[in-house]
């Protein structure tokens, strides 16, 4: 539960209370039992208590629900990952118990529903077992009508008691959650909660209490990556979008569909992904910076239009919530296997911008950055997220929305003259003039996917093709020069450099911390600007003996993953090696470390 465990008051027969600085609680049941809700409450409470929090969940792949888990790690200090192992396993069913006990720390606690779980005597020796007839007691508490409903909230009460959580805050959260529903629903939820909380502490045995968290200057907000990304787009001033349903992108699209009208914006459900990207493109052409997005095969479908946006130099934001591929693949799996299609997808020489947010908070700010880069450089920008980050809940500082909020109303200021593809423009950077812009010279632009001259009229001149191809490249080279040098986590020199991108940042940082604590000199370079890459990475690489690019994708034909391939082609550095996996889960800290050890022990030839 953490190294700072301190025995505290155990007087007068009341249970022993231990101080903990953090805890990992894994809730295992069926998705229809509302286990996400328990996790959500715990995460939100942590945020309101100035604690750090990170969650991890699995989505059942069948519509009717099924076994799923929600893991929440709460800490009074910084929480980098959702935790390799749990301190407490809350098991609702036999299958939850059997399938997840392996994730429990030695001498961890199993809190189980005696109505459904028969404990295994072997395991009882190893882990502390606490049986509570959760289902029966819930029915007793709320009147026996609701069947399995409410047992999640009852269990939340148990956990609240076990960890001495702030009951007033939790009850307020429960009340807020059921606000707008009929009063009896909220009443019932609170009754179930109090039932759990009031359950005899004798059964619970040892109780825990979090150490006081560090004071924070700012209020915390708690949300998942999809929410942060959607709100980031809204804050960036995006007011138009289009998409087609596909898991796990759909949640984001549904959120945009319901939020945009409040801002006078529109989100269109299109007939397919090519229509979606085209509708968004039309709105971008009309002077907005529009958004589209998808997952898996939907991204493949958008390819032709993304090529057009590069050629026509049209701002557009494309969100790719990655999932297991190729083809329909593994819809609910975590995978980082779309880096190649994001960077290179499509025919022709086709440079574009690719960003990969590294945390939930970063989803919010990356969305804004994506919109601004799209606009400033008239280029499509792809945001790569994945199921891990999109469903993961984290707490972060409340942004100052008043200053962050942007207004992207189309700029229709009349111009004396306009060349959509002016070759004399500094660094090749030109700005799109949307329809509605009056141009005094009387020469109006055509935006086009054919190679063109400076006003957009088709050309077959090799000279123009050369200079226009260079223009499209030069502007992104100019962008690369403005990118901040990525931060190195750990010392600038050492034995092993772990390189990662996107959602795995926390796990890699924690791996570095653990390795350093064990005396190994590891550092981590985590990249969020995937294309163009920031400059100067070779200098960072120089400080290390080994460079391992850790990704959730296949080692490919040549033994390294997709980012590693990109870095190898960029830096020609044979020390760049891959550490890869495709099991559909995010990297666990200890698996990262054991993979590195394994690689280091392979004799050189």
């Amino acid at each position, binding site marked *: 539960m953490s190294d700072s465990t301190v025995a505290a008051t155990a007087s007068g027969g009341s249970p022993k209370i231990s101080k903990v600085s953090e805890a990992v609680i894994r809730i295992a049941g069926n998705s229809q039992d509302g286990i996400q809700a328990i996790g959500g409450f715990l995460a*939100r409470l942590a945020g309101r208590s100035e604690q750090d929090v990170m969650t991890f969940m699995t989505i059942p792949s069948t519509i009717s629900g099924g076994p799923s888990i929600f893991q929440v790690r709460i800490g009074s200090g910084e929480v980098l990952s959702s935790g390799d192992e749990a301190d407490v396993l809350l098991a609702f069913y036999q299958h939850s118990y059997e399938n997840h006990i392996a994730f429990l720390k030695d001498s961890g606690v199993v809190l189980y529903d005696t109505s459904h779980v028969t404990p295994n005597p072997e395991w009882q020796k190893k882990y502390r077992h606490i049986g509570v007839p959760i289902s029966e007691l819930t029915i007793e508490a709320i009147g026996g009508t609701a069947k399995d409903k409410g047992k999640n909230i009852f269990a939340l009460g148990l956990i609240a008691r076990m960890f001495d959580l702030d009951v007033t805050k939790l009850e307020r959260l429960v009340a*807020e959650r059921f606000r707008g529903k009929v009063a009896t629903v909220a009443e019932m939820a609170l009754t179930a909660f109090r039932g759990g909380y009031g359950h005899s502490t004798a059964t619970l045995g040892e109780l825990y209490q979090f150490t006081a968290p560090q004071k924070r200057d700012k209020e915390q*907000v*708690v949300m998942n990556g999809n*929410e942060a990304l959607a*709100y980031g787009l809204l*804050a960036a001033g995006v007011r*138009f979008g*289009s998409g087609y349903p596909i898991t796990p992108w759909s949640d984001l699209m549904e959120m945009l569909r319901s*939020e945009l*009208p*409040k*801002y*006078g*914006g*529109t989100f*269109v459900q*299109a*007939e*397919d992904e*090519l*229509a*979606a990207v*085209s*509708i*968004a493109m*039309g*709105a*971008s*052409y*009309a*002077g907005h910076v*529009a958004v589209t997005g998808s997952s898996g095969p939907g991204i493949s479908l958008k390819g032709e239009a993304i090529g*057009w946006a590069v050629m026509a130099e049209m701002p557009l934001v494309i969100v790719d919530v990655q999932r297991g591929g190729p083809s329909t693949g593994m819809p609910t799996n975590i995978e980082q296997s779309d880096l190649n299609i994001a960077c290179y997808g499509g025919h022709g020489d086709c440079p574009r911008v690719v960003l990969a947010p590294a945390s939930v908070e970063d989803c919010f700010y990356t969305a804004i950055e994506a919109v601004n880069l799209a606009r400033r450089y008239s280029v499509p920008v792809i945001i790569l997220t994945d199921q891990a980050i999109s469903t993961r809940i984290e707490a972060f500082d*409340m*942004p100052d*929305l*008043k200053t962050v*909020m942007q*207004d992207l109303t*189309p700029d*229709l*200021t*009349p*111009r*004396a*003259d306009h060349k959509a593809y002016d070759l004399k423009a500094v660094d090749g950077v030109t700005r799109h003039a949307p*329809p*509605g*812009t*009056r141009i005094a010279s*009387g020469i*109006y*632009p*055509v*935006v*086009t*996917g*054919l190679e063109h001259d400076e006003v957009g*009229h088709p050309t077959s001149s090799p000279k123009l093709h050369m200079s226009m191809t260079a223009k499209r490249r030069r502007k992104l080279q100019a962008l690369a020069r403005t990118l901040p040098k990525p931060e190195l986590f750990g010392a600038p020199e050492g034995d092993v450099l772990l390189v990662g991108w996107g959602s795995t940042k926390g796990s890699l940082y924690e791996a570095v911390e653990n390795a350093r604590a064990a005396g190994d000199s590891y550092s981590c370079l985590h990249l969020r600007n995937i294309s163009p890459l920031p400059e100067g990475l070779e200098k960072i690489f120089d400080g290390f003996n080994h460079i391992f690019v850790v990704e959730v994708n296949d080692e490919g034909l040549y033994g390294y993953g997709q980012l590693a391939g990109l870095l190898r082609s960029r830096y020609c550095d044979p020390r760049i090696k891959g550490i890869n996996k495709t099991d559909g889960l995010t990297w666990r800290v200890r698996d990262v470390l054991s993979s590195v050890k394994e690689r280091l022990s392979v004799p050189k030839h």
Partner: protein
Amino acid sequence: MSTPIAEIERKPLTKKEIAADHPTWCPGCGDFSVLALYFKLIEKRKIWHEKITTVAGIGCSSRFPYFVQAHGAHYIHGRALPFATGVSLSRPDLHVFAFGGDGDAFSIGGNHFNHCARKNVKLTYLVMDNQVYGLTKKQTSPTSPIGFKSKTDQWGSMDEPVNPMRQALSAGATFVARTTHTNPKHLLEMMEAAMDHNGFSFIECLSECTEFFEGAFDASNPRKGGEFRDMPAGHDVTDEIAAYKAAAEPFPGHFGIFYKVNKPTKNEKEAEINRRSREKVQGLADWQILQQNFDRMK
């Protein structure tokens, strides 16, 4: 950069000001008439350069935007309609015209045609139907008549052609008209009516490909011994069954407005959703609307 120009000083545009590049079409290509009448429409209806947007897919006919001196987009093959949808829904101040060929509209873009029609997006779509793939040099098109010898059907086209009128009607288009490049007066009339229609307006314009399907439409051209037949007298444009019947006539069939009804447009329905959503956040700045969400996530 910006030079303010007073509206009042503006004179209606002349054809010279609306014409851009000289069209690259083959001599005698039917598409020339469509372009000439588009210029006429702009002149006659006094539309300013910046108020009109010309969108097209890919094909000979889709080269259209290059020849018009106004904002234009030459998009990808078959997807002009979704692109035009994005323009129309996000910019109610613009006239949106989409142009394309029969392959663009009914083969690669067939699905978009159906959905744009049923959603009743406010825009005008004019398809220059030459019943052949012109740009790629004589392959069978989805409107090629059975027996048409093309490079991909040396023995004659064998598949049942798409009937654009029936397709549009069954997809739910609210304005469906048919015209031909050889009757300029009629073509302009159809364009004007389409532009004035509040909703998705579709025009099929027979437009001869002199290069690869010469004489295809002679039967509808009085100067070639054919007959130009108006819609039957008393045709009720709101009668869908009558429209289907007219659409079922064998070639060269009828010309005119087959169907025209008023239904709420996608643009209006979305605007209504916006109005209702905005009511709930009345008086709030954008950041305050977002702040409400963030406050719920504390």
